[in-house]
């Protein structure tokens, strides 16, 4: 079965999001674009396995993410273990009145292990639900929740944001049916 015009159109429409996610993962715009290219080729080749009407964006994000990790493995790079790094934290001082510079934020994000970075991006920026993010990352919903929570805490630490760091377990579990489903 040939690729339909709708599929192609939606593919095109998703490219900006795919690039944003790819940059978030690779932290490098050239690598990100190569990753997006691979993703588009793969998506085209296996378009028959996609069910029209289901979430194309999530499907494409899954392909892109798998491609990213398989490339990392090929390069022989160990995937960072979220518990094992960051013994040394670089503190970034908010420029003034606690207002963060975007460059500072980018620097802080770079310091997160991949699994935490992708989780907080998927939930906090790409607009996926915890369930969708879990599917994209091929893990349990609870795992996504804990990664997001650790990512947030770590970003607050690095950026020295106080005052929003003390959410207890209740706050975390209240995210379950959060407002990110849209």
């Amino acid at each position, binding site marked *: 079965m040939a*690729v339909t015009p709708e599929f192609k159109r939606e593919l095109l429409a998703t490219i900006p999001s795919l690039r944003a996610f790819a940059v978030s993962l690779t932290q490098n715009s050239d690598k990100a674009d190569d990753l997006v290219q691979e993703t588009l080729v793969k998506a*085209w080749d296996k378009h028959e396995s996609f069910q029209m009407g289901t979430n194309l964006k999530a499907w494409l994000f899954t392909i892109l993410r798998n491609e990213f990790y398989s490339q990392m493995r090929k390069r022989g790079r160990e995937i960072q273990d979220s518990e094992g790094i960051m013994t040394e934290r670089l503190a970034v001082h*908010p420029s003034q*009145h606690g207002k963060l510079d975007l460059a500072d934020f980018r620097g802080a994000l770079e310091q997160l292990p991949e699994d935490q970075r992708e989780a*907080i991006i998927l939930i906090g920026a790409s607009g996926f639900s915890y369930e969708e993010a879990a599917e994209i990352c091929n893990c349990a919903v609870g795992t996504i929740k804990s990664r997001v929570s650790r990512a947030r805490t770590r970003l607050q630490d690095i950026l020295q944001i106080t005052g929003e760091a003390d959410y207890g377990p209740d*706050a975390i579990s209240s995210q379950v049916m959060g407002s990110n489903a849209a």
Partner: protein
Amino acid sequence: MKSMKDSLALGASTPRAKGSADPLGVNSEIGRKLKQYYDELVSDDVPDRFAQLLSQLEAAETTRKGD
């Protein structure tokens, strides 16, 4: 823990109520920055190579069908 200066800086007039419901929402500095970071990436101009790539894939498919 939470000084008045911090509250002002974060614009947190309703300290915890909203933040707890959505820790990455607009009331959270992290949530706001995250969206700003990502939105900037999303609004970046898309290079032509991607549209060209899809056209090439489409052309290849048409050729194959014609065989």
